[in-house]
């Protein structure tokens, strides 16, 4: 594989990582910890929203993030022809 293509592939990979990890940080450390008191003034059924993110929502988002990453990377691998 050419060096310039390798660099491009890696750059796109890093961009995905940055976006996904930002969401990862936001739902757990952001919604579940730092902003928990503000979000707790909003209700989601019987849950206070901040509490829900800390004990439920963040975990669901984590699972979704990994599967989104799998999809994105499989596509990227195909695009650069580095899939197996």
């Amino acid at each position: 594989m050419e060096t310039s293509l390798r660099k491009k592939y890696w750059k796109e990979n890093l961009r995905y990582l940055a976006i996904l990890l930002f969401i990862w940080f936001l739902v757990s450390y952001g919604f579940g910890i730092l902003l928990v008191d503000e979000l707790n003034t909003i209700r989601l059924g019987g849950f206070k929203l901040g509490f829900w993110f800390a004990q439920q929502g963040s975990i669901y988002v984590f699972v979704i993030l990994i599967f989104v990453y799998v999809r994105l990377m499989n596509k990227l691998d195909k695009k650069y022809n580095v899939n197996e």
Partner: protein
Amino acid sequence: MGIQTWTFIIVGITFALYIGIAIWSRAASTKEFYVAGGGVSPLANGLATAADWMSAASFLGMAGIIAFSGYDGSVYLMGWTGGYVLLALLLAPYLRKFGKFTVPDFIGDRYYSNVARTVAVIAALFVSFTYVAGQMRGVGVVFSRFLDVEVNTGVYIGMTVVLFYAFLGGMKGITYTQVAQYCVLIFAFMVPAIFISIMATGNPIPQLGFGSAGEDGVFLLDKLDGLMTDLGFTAYTDGSKSITDVFFITAALMLGTAGLPHVIIRFFTVPKVRDARKSAGYALLFIAILYTTAPAIAVFARTNLMETVEDTPYSEIPSWFTKWEETGLIAWTDKNEDGKIQYLPGSSIDGKKPLFTEERGASGERLISNPSNTRNELYVDRDITVLANPEIAGLPNWIIALVAAGGLAAALSTAAGLLLVISTSISHDLIKKQFAPDISDKKELLIARLSAVLAVIVAGYFGINPPGFVASVVALAFGLAASSFFPAIVMGIFSKRMNREGAIAGMIAGLGITTYYIARFKLGWIGNPETSGPDDWWFGISPEGFGTMGMLVNFAVALLISRFTAAPPEEVQQIVEDIRIPSGAGEALDH
């Protein structure tokens, strides 16, 4: 049939199953012994990773910890799941592409240094041993609780079973028994949870149930908050830890999870890079089923407890209360002699456990010799949250037996995974890589098997004679993994410039400062114990959360030192280029 008979039958069947799988999946080469031949499907690896990860503490303990700490318990929920995102995105695919057997393999090759390898081996052994001691103890405790045997006898039985499949099958045997163990433990966890959810709210899905309303139309969480604040507790949905501390503990658990060798090693067993990514997703999905149910169980159990006991005369208490009182997990002292139970904030006893005398009190309760001088009269062991569930829900005896089998599956699967890391570290990282590089595959396999035996014996010894600091070692294991492996591996992949000097200095600095902090503020081995309270913590960070700081120190030291020392050699930079590209992982495996 009685609970005892059912327990013998169900535990017997599951053990026969595990041993059967072990015989079927014997390992014939070191590759099979270390990484199950590299041919495990992503789904099977996801199941195995989930069982590997969820220990007796997750199965029996976590719901209880959350029930008695409310919002503060979120650190475990987010911390022990969020690490998988880091694993999937930052570590697993690249380590799989690297294609060797162990974490010290990667550290040693990437940093072209046997010193780095040795530091990694020591850290891996230390983390795994501290962790496994607790697991063997857990096996013993589960046995003693359900089968009425001594804790030590339980440890011996557990050792025999683990030894059998770890010795015969290595990673291959462990992987497929873990798949079976996951099925047993998740079934055992979910069935009582679903029934309790229906009882409490009419909703069969616990995750939704604890956000719904009970028969009286009041939302369950609002009711619980009300019950607790009325009695002077902090509201369930509010925390009492500082935001900084919650932040740091959550981060330390996440980073530690991503750096634990027995978790990382599981991703070496799948055929391709894309399988490593996918199986991390499956693993978290299977873990999330239990981890999103646990907080629901916690709320049901805590509400039930508060409603049942508060101001209830001892003579009218339900039978599960007196049954668990007999086992010592509940203790009541009638401090104001009104015959009723007062459940208030503060510990009802002096010390950690109630010390029962042989006598009975005026209401027929078991008397204890160490009541405290608070007004709270009730001691409840947190483990009861999961243990008492089936009885509180009035479920049949065979389900209670199933919970026993589930607890054992959780403890055994984690112990086996850890023992494999220990035996691999000894036979592969120490003997093969350092002392006897020329030994044949057959001989190495034999050494691996013998190391597994040795590891089981040492772990069993610690299970029977737990070191005094066992309760604190989980903090230590996660802190050390977060401050050593995680930064070293991440920089090894994402920075081509990171060199031997930087990585070694970083690991030693991170390990050093974290060990110091825990020894100083948690174990009380160094410094004046008078000045090791929460007021003296640096930046208000508890010892459980200090691994995060250790990781930052590791990164900072490594980046600084690497600036002033020579760049890594050309062939090492080539390794980094190579692991970033997924194709060709299959060929890289045979080396």
